[in-house]
């Protein structure tokens, strides 16, 4: 059986619920292949030698064992199209070099592979023996699919909501203020300190703390935890009732226009409030987009620093602004490294320093840090319901990693990962508690008495 036939056969097994193509979709994809491939992507596409040594660096392949899940196969899907439109042999001898023309079937299969078999975690890039970045190729594939209108509906709907309302959950300023008021009262009662406050829309604060809207809707305790930490550290901070959403489904879709529009809302709000620093809540891709991608999308440097709240908490600790008692968190804890914060963001040691001070027993997963495995929920997979089965299957690698540590608590500084870890916890019966870093640090806080303060 020839390569093209084998590919066609393999595509039958791939979930495909992306719907029919829009008119002109194939032409737009071809135009992008002909004129929209940058130097970096072209170099990567010309570098893969199909050695296949990347296969077991990918959690999706480790979980399903299918060749279609290897990074090399995902790269090859795009490289075949690139060769057809950008190389001499691809035009005159496509069978020899495995070049393939773009058509509806090819794009549908590419969509299933790019959105259903890859979380853009980049572990393959760190470990490719040649030195190319398969995740960047899958991102390019997604850009092709944006042009062709073949992005999973869940991702598209989140982009539309963020563009229309300023956040993916369509929360109004009133919703935010009501929730924060309730959280503030609750926090004051819980800690017995009426001076704890959660300022909103305070002009001239040093720090704007920007949120994942899921926190407001489903995980408000993580906001309370951050508020308590800011209070304990004596930070001059504020929340925003509008344009506070750090999530960015434009990034997941590899749609630079949408990514820029969404990121710009938070950035403009930070500029409006005149803050010195934008502190991003525990959200891996939110950090990556605002810290690393947004300046490139906008074509300008940002007038304020962008840091993860994990970095900020670690700085407070180093500066003696937080006192922690590790005995307050007695259960053994392990740490999941979000790919966008760690492998693609460089925030590697801060969370470890925090845990060593905040919990009695901290056990690393194997492997860990930048070589840790993806939880399986990245790259927009959580929003792409058509790929749910594959997402849970791919999470088996993470579930086994966690189980091997013997931990009772898994910490993760990313709400996207936390959603996935909670689902893995149920599915694989891990019997864990899944928590954010801020929640763990807040529980370990030794607060000064009002007299001491």
């Amino acid at each position, binding site marked *: 059986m020839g390569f093209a036939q084998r590919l066609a056969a393999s595509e039958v097994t791939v979930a495909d619920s992306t719907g029919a193509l829009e008119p002109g979709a194939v032409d737009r994809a071809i135009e992008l292949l002909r004129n929209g491939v940058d130097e970096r992507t072209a170099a990567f596409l010309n570098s893969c030698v199909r050695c296949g040594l990347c296969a077991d660096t990918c959690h999706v392949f480790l979980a399903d064992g299918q060749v279609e899940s290897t990074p090399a196969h995902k790269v090859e899907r795009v490289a075949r199209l690139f060769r057809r439109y950008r190389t001499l*042999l691809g035009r005159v001898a496509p069978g020899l070099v495995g070049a393939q023309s773009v058509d509806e079937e090819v794009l549908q299969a590419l969509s299933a592979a790019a959105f259903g078999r890859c979380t853009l975690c980049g572990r393959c890039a760190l470990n490719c023996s040649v030195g190319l970045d398969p995740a960047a190729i899958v991102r390019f594939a997604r850009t092709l699919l944006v042009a062709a209108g073949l992005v999973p509906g869940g991702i598209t709907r989140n982009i539309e909501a963020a563009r229309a309302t300023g956040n993916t959950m369509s929360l109004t300023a009133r919703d935010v203020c009501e929730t924060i008021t309730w959280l503030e009262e609750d926090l004051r009662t819980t800690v017995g300190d009426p001076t704890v406050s959660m300022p909103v829309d305070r002009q001239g604060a040093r720090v704007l703390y920007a949120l994942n809207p899921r926190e407001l809707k489903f995980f408000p305790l993580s906001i309370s935890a951050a508020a308590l930490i800011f209070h304990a550290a004596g930070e001059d901070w504020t929340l925003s009732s509008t344009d506070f959403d750090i999530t960015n489904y434009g990034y997941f879709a590899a749609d630079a226009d949408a990514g820029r529009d969404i990121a710009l809302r938070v950035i403009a709000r930070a500029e409006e409030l005149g803050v010195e620093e934008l502190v991003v809540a525990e959200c891996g891709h939110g950090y990556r987009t605002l810290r*690393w991608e947004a300046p490139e999308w906008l074509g300008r440097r940002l007038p304020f620093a962008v840091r993860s709240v994990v970095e900020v908490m670690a700085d407070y600790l180093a500066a003696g602004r937080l006192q922690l008692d590790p005995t307050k968190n007695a259960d053994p804890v392990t740490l999941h490294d979000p790919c966008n914060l760690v492998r693609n963001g460089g925030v*590697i040691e801060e969370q470890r320093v925090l845990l060593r001070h905040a919990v009695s027993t901290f056990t690393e997963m194997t492997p860990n840090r930048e070589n840790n495995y993806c939880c399986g929920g990245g790259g927009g997979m959580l929003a792409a319901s058509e790929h749910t089965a594959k997402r849970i299957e791919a999470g088996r690698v993470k579930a086994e990693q966690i189980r091997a540590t013997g931990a009772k608590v898994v910490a993760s500084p990313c709400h996207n990962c936390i959603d996935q870890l909670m689902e893995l916890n149920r599915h694989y019966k891990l019997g864990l508690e899944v928590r954010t870093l801020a929640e763990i640090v807040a529980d370990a806080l030794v607060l000064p008495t009002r007299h001491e303060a």
Partner: protein
Amino acid sequence: MSFSSVALALALAVAVGSFAVQRLRLVAFRAPAPLAPARGSAAAGVLYAFTKAFAPGAKESASRHLPSYVAGIVYHLSIFAALARLLATLLPVPMPPAVDAAAAVLFAAGLACGLALLVKRLSDGKLRALSVPEDLLANVLVDVMVAAALAVSLEPDLVPLFQTSGVLLLLYAPLGKLRHMLFLLTSRRYSGAYFGRRGVRPAPRGLGSHRG
């Protein structure tokens, strides 16, 4: 100058010219310099990518597949040596016998590794599923050239045969998979700079908190 030497010189010019055109065409599509403040050093990342990242323990693709990785390294070293030996045939200076003898060992080892990798590609179901016909062609063209280098290192009268294999390889190289010899350098530079700027590789020491 023999016919095969002239043909080799022309093939070399065509290959170099073709690679240069391909490379220059891409420069127009180079992304602007990154604007996000670096957390680490792009230069350190690039240096790492071209040095320590080649160590067998640096990447899982190498450490988990050590025989294949070592075979690949030996194969490529033999290819570079064979290309150097090929260019040397254009010079009016005979190769010292001691150098030829040492090179023969490398060529033999490289040829064995190249053939072993070819057998692996044909026999491993997953690798076969990743392959295209050109994978076979490219491997055979290179193996023939390395085999010819081995032959010349043992029998200098076979230079025309070696040069002919070199002509075929050089004319094909810019067209297909063998282009990775050029683009690999760019790929490694980009990946090295990416992980270097973000403070991921080389692995950081201690806290890397950066205020931008």
